[in-house]
């Protein structure tokens, strides 16, 4: 038992630390992340700048914290949005009539095969890029995978005896979904919710490769990593490793928590 709970606790602890660092950080470490210091451009870590400076001489640590804040306030709500729409779509497909299931599944296959890049550029051009639209954009990217999972799980549960018995006593489709289905697919949902958080953080960071993520001068972990990549020949490791580790840390926290939950739920 300890090994299962261990990874769950480790995941939550790591995730909590990162969230705390990013959300509270900017208030604790007072430096202005966007102040440009031409004289100190591209310097390694020093006392004045614990995490060095970027090519415009901005404070690396302050950027990292501001980046964390920008990343989390967008990716967490996006994960929630993706979770709800994926769950809704999955339930609708799983419980709906046969023909509805066929159509929605066909549509789902299309979404899963659709290169997210095309969709991104389309929406990014039409919708003014602010935190809200980013949440919608990211939410849109991650829900299909969860939808398919929920649908398959619902279809697997739909034929079970205790559901037939409930229907025999006059249970309607919504009662079945609310009382029986939700409880049975709860473990799958919980586990994938944690992985979803990891996915949205990763997608936001990938977005900055397109210049579509957080807009300058604001930064997200992904955009700092990306701008560091442009000058990789100068080996600015202090610009690459911290944001990379923060993204890695949040993804690790999500999968650790997810892993712990899988074993705990799976064990029943």
């Amino acid at each position, binding site marked *: 038992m300890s090994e299962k709970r261990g990874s769950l606790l480790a995941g939550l602890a790591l995730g909590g630390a990162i969230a705390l660092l990013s959300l509270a950080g900017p208030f604790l470490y007072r430096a202005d992340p966007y102040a440009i210091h031409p004289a100190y451009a591209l310097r390694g870590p020093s006392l004045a700048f614990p995490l060095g400076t970027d090519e415009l001489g901005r404070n690396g640590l302050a950027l990292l914290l501001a980046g964390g804040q920008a990343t989390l306030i967008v990716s967490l709500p996006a994960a929630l949005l993706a979770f709800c729409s994926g769950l809704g779509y999955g339930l609708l497909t799983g419980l709906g009539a046969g023909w509805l299931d066929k159509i929605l599944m066909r549509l789902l296959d299309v979404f899963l095969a659709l290169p997210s890049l095309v969709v991104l550029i389309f929406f990014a051009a039409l919708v003014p890029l602010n935190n809200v639209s980013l949440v919608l954009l990211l939410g849109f990217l991650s829900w299909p995978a969860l939808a398919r999972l929920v649908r398959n799980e619902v279809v697997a549960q739909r034929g079970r005896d205790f559901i037939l018995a409930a229907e025999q006593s006059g249970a309607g489709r919504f009662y079945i979904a609310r009382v029986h289905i939700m409880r049975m697919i709860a473990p799958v949902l919980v586990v994938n919710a944690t992985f979803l958080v990891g996915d949205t953080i990763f997608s936001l960071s990938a977005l900055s490769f397109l210049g579509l993520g957080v807009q300058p001068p604001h930064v997200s972990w992904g955009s700092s990593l990306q701008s560091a990549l442009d000058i990789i*020949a100068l080996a600015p490791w202090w610009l690459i490793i911290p944001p990379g580790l923060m993204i890695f840390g949040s993804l690790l926290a999500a999968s650790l928590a997810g892993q712990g939950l899988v074993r705990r739920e799976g064990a029943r």
Partner: protein
Amino acid sequence: MALLLGAAPAAFAETQDCGSIVIPPGLGIGPGADVTSLNPLLTSSLYNQEAAGLIFTPLLWINRFHQIDYERSIASAVTTPDNGKTYDVTLRPWKWSDGTAVTSADVLYAYQLIKALGQSYAAYGQGGIPDIIASISAPDAAHVHVALTRPVNPQWFILNGLSQLTPLPQHVWAHYSTNEIWQAQSDPAFFHVGDGPLLPQALNIGIDAVFVPNPLYGGTKMHFSRFVMRFESAEGQELQAVQAGDLDMSNIPFDLYGKALQLPGDYVVTLPPSYSWHELIPNMANKATGFFADVRVRQALADAIDQKRIIALAMHGLGIPVYNPVPPYPDTFLSPTARAGQYPVGYDVAKAKTLLAAAGFLPGADGILQKDGQRLAFTLLIPAGQPLRIEIAESIQQDLQQVGIAMKVRQMEFNQILAAMVGQPQAWEAILIGMNLGAYPSGEELFSAGAALNNNGYANPKMDALIKQSTDQPGLGGLFAYQDFASEEQPVIFLPNERYSVLVRKGLHGVQDFLNPLGAWAPEKLYCTPGRAN
């Protein structure tokens, strides 16, 4: 402003054949992109012009100082008996690569093809071509007579207009329809006849364009047997490639300039800036940013922006400030006041603040200036994924913050920015973009009311008159008056232009003369000395 001319060419040590020369497109101009067309009439991008320039010798070769180098031109002389309305061009004996002589008929054919292409012609309207020409005729094989619809400033027409009539192999191309010519623009086989130094051998999509010396080329012989334009699409990779021996030259991204200097063996050549500038286009047509229409606001913007800091930070010191619509290098067309460095605008935060106060802007609660309810705030659109532009924008944002102007920055795909700029005046507030100029820096396409490239609704009768004078009256008086007035008007906020440096592999020389900031290459200037691993 003495400009470093780069290393003096090495003494004529014992030269050796260079074998293959491999360089990326866009040397000295910007991040290279694939060559997609070899037809000089259809090349909208500078990189395509470089490739086409290798195959066809221009009617008039314009050198680094914007003077015609008759040594390298097909025309041996251009005269204008009535000082601006009619022109006589004498051609030099010259041969096509299949031995046929280059005649005036080839020049006339080029003109007819431009007329046939109409708006599809890449430089339509530049230097008045083609509509300004009333008639063009070839009294004999070596002479072309051009009559214009109205007398114009000869320098303007010759440098910007006449120079476009690159002779084309009429005896080969005439068999094809305009559409077929359009369709074959990227097929090397179609360009087997050329009169330039090189002929195209292959255009491998996404990889390179390979050229071989034109056996019947009239100019000096090449010092190499193969000339390859290699499409590296990320600047970071190019430095690596030069060191690894994959490339002979490459642009040095500004951030990596320091590192490039220490690379063993290879050496750095810093080039004069290309004939262009960066500009922040304030959109006066957009109701949301009506305040740009007030010249004092535009002047305040120009005064608030510290161009020297931009050069120091974003361009690592390799750039020149620009305050008027004539790039300061070469100083051929600089007005006396500009040449003396006296511009009506310049980095002066206090002046900017007084100008804004005079314009009636008072600081709001959040410190941002506002006038009868409208905050002095706007969003600057910049092309996505270009580190240089991002850094310029971030530096400007800080500067404007000091004088109480709030500027947000947003990255957008380049073609979407252009679409908004050209077609949707209400969809954008300000745009940061580069602008390249023709040999004669007149502004008829840029700032006169309703001009093709005037997208921010700027219109000023005095500006129109001065521009007209610079293109229609002979002499440079018009040009000088126009540039001084434009510096005062700041129809777009002029920003510094970067000076690219090129990393050159050990043993390769003549780079300075080979690269011409106006984009035309002189491959015969390149030569090699021993010690160059081939």
